[in-house]
């Protein structure tokens, strides 16, 4: 069963229109919520006048902090699954976020709500609410925000709210011995995950069960249960959060949002069923984004292209709050080495608050930024050393002989980073062969003679995934022979109902058709940590393995007694007595297991087991992308001629789903490379506030992809699986940037994504200039709070 691609179990309801997303929830007497949101990036709410709104037909009430004082409180703690403490951080302030604040700190921040009999009436009510704002200075630019003189986002502390540092080796010595030294600023934009379903919440108080039932779009729905329990002071088991059919997440729906808590609080207080469904405009303004990140690198190398040292300073614009603390910059540091040896390394990072919406990790979560940074460094080094980019990579590659390889980094679960059970050389060589790299180099030279501009780019990524602390699974066989797998995670499209069923079927010996998976509901298993950080297969998958194995042992023991047989074989939901024709079905065994006295020594009645899997640390997946494209120098348009992906994610449970994850992820990486950016203007207003302005890839943007799986099972978990959810996008921006730069071929350096057609044209027309950041940097670049910064090099003028 494992390693095959049965059709997905969840598909049937989705292709027939019978999925049940939050917007589909209908409750008797249900009212609709619309949030009053700030028009300004920083302002004090002097007055909210709701008299006119309350007169609108259909408007039931307007909830302000005066109306419901509970909402004056802060959203309780936010946790990321698995992070005990950040090993690199020496400063980490997490400003608390008030549910209905009196000072709004980003455009789109909510501070009151209209409740009405229809969503249309709620929108009318919203229009009629009058708000007096007292404007406050807007902190818009992270670099100016770092200055001591900058206005502050939060009272009580400066705008730099987190800092980390880590180093290995002897950096200064390496720089003094270097033959090649260069500096470069590299920038990655803020992205929105742009799931097709926006956020939403529905909630009702069940008087008979004394239970608050919540339907949510959250990836970490147990956190909503936990936070509601804290705010309302009612036990967790009196709150049931259902988050089952979700229209995509990609990290954006990972953090518990204030609205996720506020809607159920209002339903509980008003004792009315409520539903809030976010509009796309609201989503663009107030759902979180990944945040701009800037990397100032200083590189030391020998003239033969051997890297000696990398010194990187990372600046992260975290928007208003710091919910995920330093997850993204920490991930960037820990994924920067990708496939290469960096003998001497120093990283430092700052998180800076601004009056932008808060940020949250988006698929890749710092890994895409790391990959872009490292491959840009290698491409610049290749030019400085007059080497082919492939040659530079080969000279610095971590080889099989180096395994297990310790980079000197420490993962954010506190465990040192070690690469093992993988072959990065084979990944690179396979990508080079499958992409016909050498053939394209020859064709590139020939076509250049004809005035055509072909570009080739290579990028290598690693993906750490499967962070703990743990996940559990309950496997239970019922007396109809149906096998239930209950898990503490939910799917936003990953296909858990299929992959978890495959794992269970294989290791229990059940037929796949008999197995069904339930998750996305706090009532099916009491503890879970949610779907994020590519952690479900490693954690939950192995928990399903353990539980299935435990139930199998019970099946085996009971079948021996029932069949009066020494050796029993289990397959297709039956136990067979070896060397005889006697057999018994799971259904019969499950019925017997209810009352059979033998179960006393097998853990109690029923064929049921709950096991938890605790990973020691993360797994490391890896891959290589090769992009080949042609540039039209007159229009700046690029056309991808071929795109090759070679990847390893350990044992693939369902190759079709793995392929879907990699290719779907690549599409998001393509968007990051050339199309997408969440743009804020000088006033902190969102300038890309709709799907017309924020360009996600369409069907015609996608190239044909040549995808190759290599399988290096990991020995770190019983299934031998590694994470795959975030692999797809990681290398696309680096490979495409490299290929565009190679096609331009005039010494220009691409230093920023997205790479727009206008950026390409500027580079084609003005050789030797750097990337999309063509404006000269502001004078006297920030030297805030005593932070030492080398003079940043905005443009790397070569050629």
């Amino acid at each position, binding site marked *: 069963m494992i390693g095959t691609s049965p*059709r997905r179990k969840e598909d049937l309801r*989705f292709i027939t229109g*019978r999925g049940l997303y939050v917007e589909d929830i209908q409750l008797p007497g249900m009212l609709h919520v619309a949030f009053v949101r700030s028009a300004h990036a920083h302002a004090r709410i002097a007055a909210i006048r709701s008299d006119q709104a309350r007169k609108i037909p259909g408007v039931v009430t307007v909830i302000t902090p005066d109306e419901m004082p509970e909402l004056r409180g802060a959203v309780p703690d936010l946790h990321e699954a698995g992070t005990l403490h950040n090993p690199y951080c020496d400063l980490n302030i997490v400003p608390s976020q008030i549910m209905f604040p009196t000072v709004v700190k980003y455009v789109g921040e909510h501070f009151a709500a209209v409740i009405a009999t229809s969503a249309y009436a709620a929108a009318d009510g919203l229009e009629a609410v009058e708000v007096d704002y007292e404007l406050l200075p807007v902190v818009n630019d992270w670099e100016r925000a770092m200055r001591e003189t900058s206005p502050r986002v939060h009272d009580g502390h400066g705008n730099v709210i987190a800092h980390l540092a880590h180093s290995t080796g002897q950096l200064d010595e390496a720089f003094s011995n270097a033959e090649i030294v260069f500096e470069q600023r590299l920038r990655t934009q803020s992205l929105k995950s742009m799931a*097709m379903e926006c956020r939403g919440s529905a909630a009702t108080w069940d008087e008979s069960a004394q239970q608050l039932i919540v339907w949510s779009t959250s990836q970490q729905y147990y956190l909503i249960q936990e936070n509601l329990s804290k705010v309302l002071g009612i036990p967790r088991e009196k709150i049931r959060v259902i988050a089952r059919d979700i229209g*995509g997440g990609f990290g954006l729906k990972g953090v518990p949002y204030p609205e996720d808590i506020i809607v159920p609080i209002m339903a509980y207080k008003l004792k009315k069923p409520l539903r809030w469904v976010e509009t*796309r405009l609201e989503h663009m303004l107030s759902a979180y984004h990944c945040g701009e990140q800037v990397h100032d690198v200083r590189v030391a190398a020998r003239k033969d292209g051997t890297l000696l040292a990398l010194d990187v300073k990372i600046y992260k614009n975290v928007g208003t709050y710091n919910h995920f603390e330093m997850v993204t910059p920490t991930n960037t540091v820990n994924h920067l080495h990708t496939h290469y040896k960096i003998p001497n390394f120093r990283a430092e990072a700052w998180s800076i608050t601004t009056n932008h919406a808060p940020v949250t990790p988006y698929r890749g979560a710092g890994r895409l930024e790391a990959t872009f940074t490292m491959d840009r460094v290698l491409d610049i080094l290749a030019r400085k050393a007059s080497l082919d980019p492939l040659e530079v990579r080969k000279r610095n590659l971590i080889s099989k002989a180096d395994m297990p390889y310790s980079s000197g980094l420490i993962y954010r679960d506190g465990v040192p980073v070690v690469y093992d059970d993988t072959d990065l050389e084979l990944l690179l060589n396979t990508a080079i062969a499958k992409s016909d790299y050498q053939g394209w180099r020859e064709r590139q030279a020939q076509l250049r003679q004809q005035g055509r501009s072909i570009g080739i780019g290579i990028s290598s990524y690693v993906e750490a995934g499967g962070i703990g602390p743990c996940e559990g699974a309950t496997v239970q066989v019922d007396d109809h022979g149906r096998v239930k797998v209950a898990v503490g995670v939910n799917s936003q499209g990953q296909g858990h109902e299929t992959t978890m069923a495959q794992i269970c079927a294989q290791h229990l010996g059940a037929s796949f058709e008999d197995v069904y998976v339930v998750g996305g509901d706090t009532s099916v298993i009491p503890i879970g940590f949610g779907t994020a950080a590519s952690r479900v297969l490693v954690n939950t998958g192995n928990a399903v393995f353990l539980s299935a194995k435990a139930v199998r042992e019970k099946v085996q023991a009971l079948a021996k007694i029932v069949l009066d047989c020494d050796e029993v074989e289990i397959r297709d939901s039956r136990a067979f007595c070896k060397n005889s024709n006697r057999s018994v079905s799971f259904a019969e065994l499950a019925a017997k297991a209810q009352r059979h006295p033998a179960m006393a020594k097998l853990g109690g009645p029923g064929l049921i087991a709950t096991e938890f899997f605790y990973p020691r640390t993360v797994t490391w997946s890896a891959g290589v992308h090769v992009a080949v494209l042609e540039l039209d120098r007159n229009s700046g348009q690029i056309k991808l001629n071929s795109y090759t992906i070679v990847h390893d994610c350990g044992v693939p449970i369902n190759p079709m789903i793995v392929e879907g994850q990699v290719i779907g992820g690549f599409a998001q990486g393509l968007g990051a490379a050339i199309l997408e950016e969440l743009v804020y203007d000088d006033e902190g207003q969102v300038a890309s506030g709709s799907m017309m302005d924020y360009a996600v890839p369409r069907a015609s943007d996608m190239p044909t992809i040549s995808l190759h799986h290599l399988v290096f099972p990991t020995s770190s978990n019983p299934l031998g699986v590694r994470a795959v959810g975030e692999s797809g996008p990681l290398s696309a921006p680096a490979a495409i940037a490299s290929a565009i730069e190679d096609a331009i071929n005039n010494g220009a350096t691409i230093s920023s994504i997205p790479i727009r057609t206008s950026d390409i044209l500027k580079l084609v027309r003005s050789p030797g200039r750097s990337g999309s950041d063509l404006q000269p940097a502001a004078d006297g670049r920030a030297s805030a709070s005593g932070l030492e910064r080398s003079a940043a090099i905005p443009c790397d003028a070569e050629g």
Partner: protein
Amino acid sequence: MHCRVAININGKTEAHEIEPRLLLVHFIRECAGLTGTHVGCDTSQCGACTIGLNGLAVKSCTKFAVQADGAEIVTIEGLSRGDTLHPLQQAFRDHHGLQCGFCTPGMLMAAKLMLDRHKQLSEELIRHELEGNICRCTGYVGIVKAIMAASIATAASDSQPDASNAIEASSR
């Protein structure tokens, strides 16, 4: 101010007193209770609300329900015949043409009307025709494969009962 609108949806007449400003997509979802048709944006970009209206693929968030008074509509719920999936639905499942499923109803309806309009589909044409439908999960590869497969399956089953048509067409 309310007005009465009657729309035939999947063969059944839905007559409701509605506000004139009610969008067709909300008529389908809230009045007819058919929640398979989704809303993914406010600007008619995403296509999650695509339905068949009098034989045309229409984004139901761009029309008022009153504009569809008397019309015949097919939604995702009307695509299969009982328990028998439409070839497109089967193909989406066979080729992993969906992940989260949110864009899927709109994709399937756009694809259905694409098949109705074109005798022959190429990959390029499918990609062009899907310009109005966004999927964030799949990278479109499975969707394009599925539509292609369904198009071939449909063409094969169309040509079977009357092989003379196919011969005639190819000799032209």
